[in-house]
């Protein structure tokens, strides 16, 4: 059985990392008259559908699920929906209508969106919709009718906690580093992380690096050839056998130039790398892929020829580029900074950007008085961030 199914949350308390959204939904179902509709929106794997099912469970309702193609079929809609929405008095059971993935509903396509609007207007049952991107223009009419609830990318610590929880239940064990790696790689998508975990936990020797490790062997010998060898025409073909995109190779070279080159060789090599970067932008801007050829030549032969003599023949241990990961992790951290600035700016009538600019001062002020933390309704994570 898929773990994503097995460990699907049942109650609000089971939902991890989406406190704000859960709070909003509790408010929504507390209202006595459940006529409005609700849209849960956010990136894949953040718990939209799960949250809809949990909501149904919490209010003892039966889920009535529709998808985009059902909406397009007018006859079918009539057939299915009319009884469901009009005969409320006949059955005592609550119903909750779930329209999953409304991104798939197209505006031109035989009035799928119009039908959805009708549904919202006439339904006497609460409606929950899910969407990845609710800011699409085609949804502007629907947005007005609905309460929007945003689900955020789940931060990697929360993902890791869930993974550990599942492993305990399964009486299984996976190395801590690998867990961290899965959690970070998932980029906020909990479902993807759980799926990865199930695959890895099932392996004899758990390791997610199998695929990446092979790549690394290739890149290591390629780097050695370029940095230590003489520039020959063979060097031009170095990257043919490396199963890696040019953009990734750029990062590897960037990380490791200073391990091999110094002084003038260092400056020449970086100058070439800087030109590679300019070609890279030209490719993106003009979609002229032939420029890739020059990138390749500079990265291999060019970097190799940057040195005057080959004297550093000993072993050099090349490092894996970590810059992108660090930037990503930093963004995770500053996400907290942003959410604090958001709360602060609403409260003191100032723009968010301004609050971010003044953040060092604001941080001191918030920390100076516990009452302010309460006033701003900062959560545990945000306070930890401020103290850290």
């Amino acid at each position, binding site marked *: 059985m898929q773990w994503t199914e097995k460990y699907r949350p049942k109650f609000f308390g089971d939902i991890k990392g989406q406190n704000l959204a859960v709070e909003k939904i509790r408010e929504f179902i507390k209202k006595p008259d459940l006529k409005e509709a609700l849209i849960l929106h956010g990136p894949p794997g953040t718990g939209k559908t799960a949250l809809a099912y949990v909501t149904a469970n919490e209010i003892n309702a039966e889920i009535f699920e529709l998808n985009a193609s059902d909406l397009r079929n007018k006859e079918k809609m009539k057939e299915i929906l009319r009884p469901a929405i009009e005969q409320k008095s006949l059955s005592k059971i609550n119903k909750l209508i779930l329209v999953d993935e409304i991104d798939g509903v197209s505006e031109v396509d035989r009035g799928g969106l119009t039908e959805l609007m009708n549904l919202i207007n006439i339904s006497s049952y609460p409606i929950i919709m899910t969407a990845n991107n609710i800011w699409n223009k085609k949804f502007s009419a629907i947005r007005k009718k609905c309460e929007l609830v945003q689900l955020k990318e789940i931060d990697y610590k929360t993902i890791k906690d869930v993974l550990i929880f599942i492993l305990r239940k399964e009486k299984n064990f996976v190395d801590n580093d690998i867990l961290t790696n899965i959690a970070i790689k998932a980029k906020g998508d909990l479902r993807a992380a759980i799926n990865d975990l199930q695959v890895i936990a099932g392996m004899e020797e758990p390791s997610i690096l199998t695929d990446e490790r092979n790549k690394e062997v290739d890149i290591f010998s390629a780097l050695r050839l370029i940095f230590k060898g003489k520039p020959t025409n063979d060097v031009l073909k170095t990257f043919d056998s490396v199963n890696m995109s040019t953009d990734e190779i750029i990062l590897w070279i960037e990380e490791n130039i200073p391990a091999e080159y110094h002084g003038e060789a260092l400056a020449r090599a970086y100058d070439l790398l800087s030109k590679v*970067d300019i070609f890279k932008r030209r490719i993106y801007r003009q979609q002229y892929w032939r420029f890739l050829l020059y990138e390749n030549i500079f990265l291999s032969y060019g970097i190799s020829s940057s040195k005057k003599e080959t004297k550093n023949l000993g072993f050099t241990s090349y490092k894996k580029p970590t810059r992108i990961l660090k930037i990503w992790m930093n963004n995770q951290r500053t996400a907290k900074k942003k959410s604090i600035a958001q709360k602060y700016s609403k409260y003191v009538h100032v723009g968010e950007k301004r609050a971010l600019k003044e953040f060092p*001062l604001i941080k001191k002020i918030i920390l100076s008085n516990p009452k302010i933390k309460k*006033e701003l309704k900062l959560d545990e994570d945000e306070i930890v961030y401020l103290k850290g």
Partner: protein
Amino acid sequence: MVSEIWTEKYRPSKFSEVVGQDEVMKRVESLTNSLNIPHLLFAGPAGTGKSTLALIIVKELFKENWKENYLELNASDERGINVVREKVKNFARTKSLGTIPFKIIFLDEADALTPEAQQALRRTMENYSTTCRFILSCNYSSKIIDPIQSRCALFRFKLLEKKDIEKVIQKIIQRENLTITPEAIEKIYEGSEGDCRRCINLLQSTSSISPSITADLVSTILSDAKPKDIKVVLDYAISGDFQNAREKLFDVMLRESISGQDVVKAIQKEIWNLPVEPEIKVKLTEKTGEAEFRIVEGSDPFIQLQALLASFVLAGLGK
């Protein structure tokens, strides 16, 4: 509940309490007393009382119902003009509560909107003119398109003078049982650059260290609040330690979230303080200019900055 954040706690709630904007206050107060106001445009630097005045107006007009009749938006934070329009639409749909026949929408930093977006805003202002009054705020009125300016009464806010800032500081010092030296007041005024919000924030964060505020304490707070300098990075590079130079640079950029172009600017200024020959300074400036150009042309500023740091390593070798 009284806020513990001083910018809120000491926010003026009456026209007479606002410092430094006497002319504006007189005119706006008489407008407000007539119970009918036109659209308003507040132009002036940050921290001079624009949001405060908007809040005073709504509280005067609606008394205890002000929250229901007031919408505050910040143009630079919302996701574009469409979101602004939608929020305005939702808010304007219902009638105002009480005797005043309109509601008030305060759009802060309206000059962050592009001219096209301002055109759309103008339409919105017209559509809801029977039920809503707009108060727009901006730093420069010239950034607001003429059709909007002509629909608003314009008020210009001045930077606060030293005597105004001093008044604000003294009031807070007294209420919070603090002491302050004249030099510290001078320092806070300098650091605040006439921005009253920043002045109060400076005062509160300094007071979190000690209740007797001195110029030295204020200086510590001010230097903490400034991004750390690029000098250390260049010192590493000149001494030939490229690895540390780039690590430090990356750190600074991440922590302070500064862009590649900002770094280049800082480096360019720092060149003149380096212990190298004049001709090398010129060479480095040329390299810096080239790096700035390549950052604009290229895709990854950090690669361009590393190339620049490598030139500083060479400069350290006298080349």
